[in-house]
């Protein structure tokens, strides 16, 4: 479980079945499989019959989810294609649908962001952080997002400004804030460290 003192960052928990939900949509990425398997193990048959899993990641890692009798399971090659599929589900979904998500923070952040477009309250989404702590960041200057940032300083993949990653997270943008790292002394960057592993 990821815990931090960053007030704007969501707190992630562990996946627990909502026994009342009419339809469960479980969105899994990479190492999130471990959390999904634990969820399916502790949930009953009734739950599994009402559950759809969408998974983005290596196919062999997902084999462990196949042994459960779930209503539907789909494998998507990337996070982007998975999110397109999520849009498809949520466009016609009804109250009583419960969302679960497990994977990296950047992945879950984008799930929560998409769900918000369909009026799903972020507090109602059941989350579990699994895998790397790499950050998805937004360059505050050009507003482009850069994925999988592991260092405190990173060059913006859009405008090329050297950015310092701040401890401030936007749920709406599904990203941490990053601002110019050498604005006050051009060319002089702080020591670069790999801190988000």
């Amino acid at each position, binding site marked *: 479980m990821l815990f931090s003192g960053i007030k704007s960052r969501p707190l992630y928990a562990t996946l627990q079945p*909502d026994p*009342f*939900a*009419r*339809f469960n949509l479980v969105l899994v990425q990479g190492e999130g499989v471990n959390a999904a398997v634990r969820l399916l193990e502790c949930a009953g048959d009734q739950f599994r019959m009402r559950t759809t899993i969408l998974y983005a990641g290596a196919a062999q890692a997902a084999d462990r989810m196949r042994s459960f009798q779930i209503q539907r399971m789909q494998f998507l090659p990337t996070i982007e294609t998975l999110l397109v599929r999520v849009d498809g589900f*949520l466009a016609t*979904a*009804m*109250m*009583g*649908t*419960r969302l679960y998500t497990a994977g990296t923070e950047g992945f879950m952040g984008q799930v929560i962001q998409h769900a918000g477009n*369909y*009026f*799903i*309250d972020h*507090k*109602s989404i059941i989350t579990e952080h699994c895998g790397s702590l790499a950050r998805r960041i937004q360059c505050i200057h050009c507003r482009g997002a850069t994925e999988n940032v592991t260092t405190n300083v990173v060059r913006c993949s859009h405008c090329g400004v050297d950015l310092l990653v701040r401890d401030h997270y936007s749920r709406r943008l599904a990203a941490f804030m990053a601002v110019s790292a050498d604005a006050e002394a051009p060319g002089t960057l702080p020591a670069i460290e790999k801190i988000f592993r």
Partner: protein
Amino acid sequence: MSDGREISVRVSDITVVAKDIKRFRLQPISGALPLFSAGSHIVVSIFADDRRIRNPYSLTSVGDPSGYDISVLKTANSRGGSVFMHERVTKGTELVISQPVNLFPINLSGRKHILLAGGIGITPFITMAHQLASLNQPFQLHYGSRSKERGAYAESLKEAFPDRVFLYRDDEGTFIPIDALLRNQPLGTHLYVCGPEGMINAFLKAGLAAGWPKESLHAERFIAPSSGKPFSVKLVRSGRTIKVDEHQSILEAVEDAGVKAPYLCRGGACGQCETDVVSCDGEIVHSDNYLDPDVRKSGSKIMICVSRLNGFELALNL
């Protein structure tokens, strides 16, 4: 709030709107009344003989902002506020009211709104239905009453929103079809309940059982202060000891003693009158909807607008 920013009004009209329900039109004695948002209430101060009772009532006026309307159900087994309003207040009576306060706002970020009213619980939904309509927000109002003659505002609401208002009557054997309503609603639907405590609890439970997240379920519960045996309260900061009578709330007794205490809803909902308990000889009877169960158990806090002591003396940090 308890700081003299109250408004003096005069009753300009009284209309019987249903059996045991009267509507009071309140006009300001000077100046204009503040605008208010849908779902707001005011607290009316009632000087019933030697006692001052303060009761919260939802505002039900739509359109003309020059006065406020409230609708009062006469409840025989209460502390006398509603009986006083029904039997002693006449056209021309002067009353003192608080500024409007909203503890039951519409969640405007929602996509659709289902309003569920039981009996006098219709009152906050009158302004809410009109506001939702004027904002072009999809909504439905389902309103259950014991009988036709008790269903205040049923006809006028049905007339204003014929496709969106649904009426149910116990004596005709029709009831709000809560389980059917909870099925097949689009994502982003919010549910609001106001009515008897049993109805609120049952509907909220049904919502959770239908897989709705608690963030989409809302209720307005005003608790009337309960009556009980008298006890004394030691006000530690003011250095005084006062007596709370059978039909008085602690807050009312504190105010009668001339001691200021913060409050807003006077119905156990808003949290403003949360007070530290210094010591307690007896058992606190918590009647509010605000304190967390563990705080309640610890006995360290009390909501003095509705809760009481079953015992001898309570010492409060007031």
